[in-house]
């Protein structure tokens, strides 16, 4: 092979590599451009109105005279539905991830995975449509009874578990023969109290009148369901990554499956589960259609703040909703305030993304010691 030919070969290889690198760098360019343009169109708002009003005032009247841009209620709204969706998705998601990684037999696992994939594939506007057209009337007409049923479904097993742990702790110091008898009595008493309490509470709930079905509760539940696939798949990957040897070591010492999972596997997979939660949260915070259609779109802080039955407004819904009118006058302050809100969203997603990356990297390092 002549010198010139091989030099040409190397040159073309280099050019090729450069070209590929440039194409790959598109994602870098895109991120930079997004930050640049969102910030560029957000700055005029801050220059005009400063930082204080947006974050501390609850008066959101962009079309008022004079216009007011207090987004505090909107921020609280976003926070509230995010919190709500975490409350729904995290317990369900982690329990489901445990089922998939350790509890379900292989065949059932394969049947369940498509369910999760379908839930993940359904477009958000379909979820929003469901939330508005089917779920909201349901909540409005039968909300009280639904909440009562949910109360029983959740509080009864949890309560029983608590009773169980309490009786166990209380009778620890008594001798063995007395212990089981004492435990039975104590458990019976506590169980009666639990059931009476639940009955009273559920009776109150059934009478509850929900004024409007489009509220924070509606959105929290739907967002929770939307976040489930993300949380389940990342958490399950994490749990699997803990490894068979770890589980075997625990079982060989005489641990039950629950003990192995809680005391060894979950702590080992801990960072991954946290990353799963962060990613699920990101999905909830960034969701637009569901909240736009079914949150009630009222820019007010509920009283008390945790009243999920009241309508709220989120950042995403505000941007989507107001832009239609704001765009009439591109360059107006209304146009720029929406970019300011978008900047908040962007920063939140960046921070959450970095956090989950860091957490995942930590987990790989920790378990790396074993491999």
């Amino acid at each position, binding site marked *: 092979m002549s010198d010139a030919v091989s030099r040409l070969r190397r040159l073309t290889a280099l050019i090729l590599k450069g070209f590929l690198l440039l194409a790959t760098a598109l994602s870098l360019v895109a991120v930079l451009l997004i930050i640049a343009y969102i910030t560029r169109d957000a700055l005029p708002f801050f220059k005009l109105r400063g930082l204080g009003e947006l974050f501390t005032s609850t008066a959101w009247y962009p079309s008022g005279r004079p216009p007011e841009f207090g987004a505090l209620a909107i921020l609280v709204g976003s926070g509230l539905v995010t919190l709500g969706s975490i409350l729904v998705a995290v317990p369900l998601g982690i329990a489901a991830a445990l089922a998939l990684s350790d509890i379900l*037999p*292989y065949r059932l696992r394969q049947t369940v995975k498509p369910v999760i994939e379908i839930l993940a594939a359904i477009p958000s506007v379909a979820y929003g449509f469901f939330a508005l057209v089917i779920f909201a009337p349901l909540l409005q007409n039968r909300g009280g009874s639904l909440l009562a049923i949910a109360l029983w479904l959740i509080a009864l097993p949890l309560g029983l578990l608590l009773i169980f742990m309490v009786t166990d702790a209380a009778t*620890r110091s008594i001798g063995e023969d007395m212990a089981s008898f004492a435990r039975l009595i104590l458990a019976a008493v506590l169980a009666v109290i639990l059931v009476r309490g639940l009955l009273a509470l559920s009776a109150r709930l059934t009478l509850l009148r929900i004024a409007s079905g489009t509220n924070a509760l509606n959105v929290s539940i739907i967002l929770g369901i939307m976040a489930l696939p993300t949380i389940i798949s990342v958490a399950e990957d994490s749990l699997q990554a803990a490894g068979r*040897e*770890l*589980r*075997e*070591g*625990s*079982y*060989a*010492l*005489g*641990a*039950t499956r629950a*003990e192995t999972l809680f*005391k*060894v596997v979950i*702590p*080992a997979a801990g960072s991954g589960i946290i990353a799963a939660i962060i990613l699920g949260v990101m999905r909830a915070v960034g969701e637009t259609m569901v909240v736009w259609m079914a949150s009630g779109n009222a820019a007010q802080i509920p009283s008390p703040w945790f009243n999920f039955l009241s309508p709220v407004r989120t950042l995403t819904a505000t941007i989507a909703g107001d832009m239609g009118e704001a765009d009439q006058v591109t360059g107006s302050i209304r146009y720029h305030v929406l970019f300011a809100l978008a900047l908040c969203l962007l920063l939140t997603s960046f921070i959450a993304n970095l956090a989950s990356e860091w957490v995942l990297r930590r987990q790989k390092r*920790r*378990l790396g*010691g*074993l491999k």
Partner: protein
Amino acid sequence: MIQSIQPSMRPPQGPALADESGLKAHVSCQDFSFFYGDNQAVKDVTLDLPSYQVTAIIGPSGCGKSTLLRSINRMNDLIPGSRTSGKLLFDGQEIYGPRLDVVTLRRRIGMVFQKPNPFPKSILNNIAYGRRLHDHLDKGELQATVETSLQRAGLWEEVKDRLDDNALSLSGGQQQRLCIARALAVDPEILLMDEPTSALDPRATARIEDLIAELRGHYTIIIVTHNMQQAARVSDLTAFLYEGQLVEYGPTDQIFTKPREKRTEDYMTGRFG
């Protein structure tokens, strides 16, 4: 304090066959078979493993020795689609019987694995893990248990000042001794060892073999190894398995110097495996 040591026990007598009177069969296989689905890994093995002796199970890879070992503490339950036939007895109780409580079984029969698998926790929490599951000990009792186990495993001097360090920071050999200490901490009667030194360097291996010699007589030890010389060094009795079947079983000296079966002799002289 750990109660399983019987100080009044006579010192180890040397290898003896299981059917000699005076030595109880701690674990007894009677026509025991194990199936992974359709694949029969252990074929009609009949074998008595006596108490407080070290028994080695040897054979070429894939001959079913690990499967047999893991059947004793029912670790094979973790594999779906497996089943057994015949009897496997522990202290006269059927291990695969319907009324046997697996959790209690695994407390009385401990296991050490081929690759050291300490939990990503502190050294102290690793050792205390098993004990904490079954008993409620106060701080002093726990500390004493941990110290005794580490001493038994020959690791105490090296880690006594850093019990709170992460167990993964130990070397491979130390991790394996940690796993042994962890297994001993729950006070088992039997210790199953599945190729415990195959992932270790020669120096660590020698330390573990010394440890086995020390533990002998206090625990029944059943060790699976593909290293014949190791079996010759540490065990009182040796069982040779080939393709799932028990070919020969007897005192180690006899197996290694005057094997009765031709297959055994072929394996010893390296003609296969």
